[in-house]
């Protein structure tokens, strides 16, 4: 039972951290793109 808790912690921790990091990047990306001229944010 204890084992299951550690395994769950590993999965939640890993994907949680990736999701948090992704959310942080995307939010900062939105904020930064407001400061930048239009010609500088045309992505491929």
């Amino acid at each position, binding site marked *: 039972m*204890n*084992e*299951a808790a*550690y*395994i769950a*912690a*590993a*999965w939640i*921790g*890993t*994907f949680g*951290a*990736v999701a948090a*990091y*992704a959310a942080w*990047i*995307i939010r*900062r*990306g*939105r904020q*930064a*793109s*407001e*400061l*930048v*001229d*239009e*010609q*500088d*944010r*045309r*992505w*491929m």
Partner: protein
Amino acid sequence: MTIDGSVSPSGAVAPARSPAPTSTSSRATRILGTVALVGTAALVVFGLWITPPDAQLGETIRILYMHVPTVSAAYVAFIITAVASVAYLWKRTEFWDLLAASSAEIGVLFFALTIFNGMLWGRITWGVFWRWEPRLTTTTVLFLTYLGYLAVRRVPTSTRTRGTVSAVIGILAVVNIPITHKAVDWWRGLHQEKTIFGTVDPEMQGTQLFTAYLGLTVFLVLFAWLLIHRFRLAWLTERAEEQGLDAAIAERRAEGSLS
């Protein structure tokens, strides 16, 4: 991933263009993101439910479905950093500098997750969070090495100096990966303990093997998706700073002309 840097001559904006996005997303990232999301869901289903417990590892193999992919993706990230660093010293273009930095940051995140997973695995297997298991030890040393790289990038200096210095560090650090591996392996050679990879059945089959590869694929896609977003964020940050600087200079000029 490159930026469409085509600044139209004479500044005339082509009429038929759609408005530029107000985020770091594009069609490519949306597709990659969807694939990553679906893949993650599949990995959860396969890793936590469908696959049977391992004959030797028992349920702990479920941690390896993430542990192995995170560490692999991190190494891919650091190799990209090193290649981009060499390319920067050669070509001296912003693209390579920002690519190296973005890749390293994600690599550090993945290394942190690898250590975290490894410790939980150890808690189950050894009964303690930490043993001086070679792979875990190597990962931690390299994690600290790349924290240094990221710290260097935060030092306020000129873009060119930052690029040169961090490129040199990116190259020196990647060369240290095999040396540290070898040294730590020998160092722990006398102490045989249950290692994370050493106990994986080399003839893994069926759903287990499939899940292992699925994990690897999912994390590589996740990495690619994060890298594109992180790169674009870095690009936007540079532009924003430039414009801030331009504005400040213009202001100073205006002040100067008044007095």
